[in-house]
């Protein structure tokens, strides 16, 4: 996707993450749409584009957050890598693939985020974080992943250059 379109798109998704999505909170968590968007793009394109999206979107999230700066960016880049590897690996079924990738990717994202939090000396109880936030987030994201993946797949079909016909 053209960076002039992709960057504003990612900024808007990040802003939605801090304004709209906390309103659909269930328990202590709400859907991480930016993570699902990055993951879907990595599954669809398997390219460096998803890594760049993860970096730009992650930095935007970090600007809006009180957490350690860079934690979301690194976390999302790991998600993009995992999704890229998964897409080329054993999970060929495109129905199950986004769900598995969202679940695993969310857990990886939270793992990286907690490591970054510990790195800058902020105290978070890891067991509490795992069972009250990371696991419910992974389930919530997995539940929404197929829908977000379909939307991104439609976007991908729309903007992907058509093959030349001779």
């Amino acid at each position, binding site marked *: 996707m053209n960076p002039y379109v992709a960057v504003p798109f990612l900024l808007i998704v990040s802003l939605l993450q801090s304004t709209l999505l906390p309103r659909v909170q269930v328990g202590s968590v709400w859907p991480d749409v930016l993570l699902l968007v990055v993951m879907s793009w990595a599954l669809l394109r398997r390219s460096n584009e998803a890594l760049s999206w993860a970096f730009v979107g992650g930095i935007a999230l970090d600007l809006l957050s009180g957490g350690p700066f860079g*934690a979301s960016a690194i976390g999302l*880049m790991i998600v993009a890598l995992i999704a890229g590897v998964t897409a080329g690996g054993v999970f060929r079924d495109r129905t199950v693939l986004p769900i598995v990738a969202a679940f695993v990717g969310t857990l990886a994202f939270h793992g990286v985020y907690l490591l970054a939090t510990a790195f800058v000396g902020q105290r978070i109880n890891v067991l509490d974080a795992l069972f009250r936030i990371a696991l419910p987030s992974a389930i919530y994201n997995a539940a929404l992943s197929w829908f977000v993946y379909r939307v991104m797949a439609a976007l991908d079909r729309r903007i992907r250059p058509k093959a030349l016909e001779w």
Partner: protein
Amino acid sequence: MNRGRSRAWLFPALSVLTIALLVLHESGVVKPLEDAAQIVIAPVQRALSDLFNGLGDAFDVVRDARELREDNEELRRLNDALVTENVRLKELEAENVTLRSLLNFTQENPTVATHAAAVIGRDPSPYRQFVTINAGSREGLEPGMAVVTAGSALVGRVAEVWPQSSKVQLLTDSTSAINVRIQSSRVTGLAEGQPDAGLLMTQIPLDGMVNVGDIVLSSGLGGNLPRSLVVGQVTEVTRRDVDLFQSAKLRPAADFNRLELVLVITNFEPLPVEPEEEPTSTPSPTP
């Protein structure tokens, strides 16, 4: 082939860049850039927040639909009886609005200077409990200032300030800890945020009197926050003889999920905390 090779360098390069940004952020070098970014982000964030306030209300209505239906039946019956008083009530309502605006926090606390601000965003991470407000250094806000609701319920402290907006750390953030005391028994402790956005009062002496329903106020100890701001109410007490201290779960006085407007206390000066200086009064021995 090319794709695989370029992916190999992109991830390490972006990782190094991110870590560099983390270090620069911690050292404050990129603060001007962050300020500039916030100048762009804050108005968009506020516009989106205003837009979604309406949607949020709709979401709440759906969630509370059953309760609202029951209330509606009851209100319908009451309404029939109140029709004849409608004109008088409208007059009272108008008067009530005026009185409400007068009976605000500032008038109850004439010595306290405040600045009102709207909440325009929440922390996108579920681990952190921060909100963004639409007032910043231009309005005289500084890090450390206390943030309250109109009912003098403590919300948190200003953590970071930009020209047009600020980040407020809520009491329930897992790295927040403030000195508090029980209003009735004067027992002191610490109100600490929890990872699940709860609030726990710790460091309560075993012989301290704590009961469910007790009101908890800021104690002012440490000099960081004004005293007697309402923090919450005790909902559960945990006391074990093997522990050195009791603890108590608190229900925060402010409803953090529905925060829309807050007041920042701008004229409270935290006591400066300085490291102990080397004793200088003793003259050095002369040769």
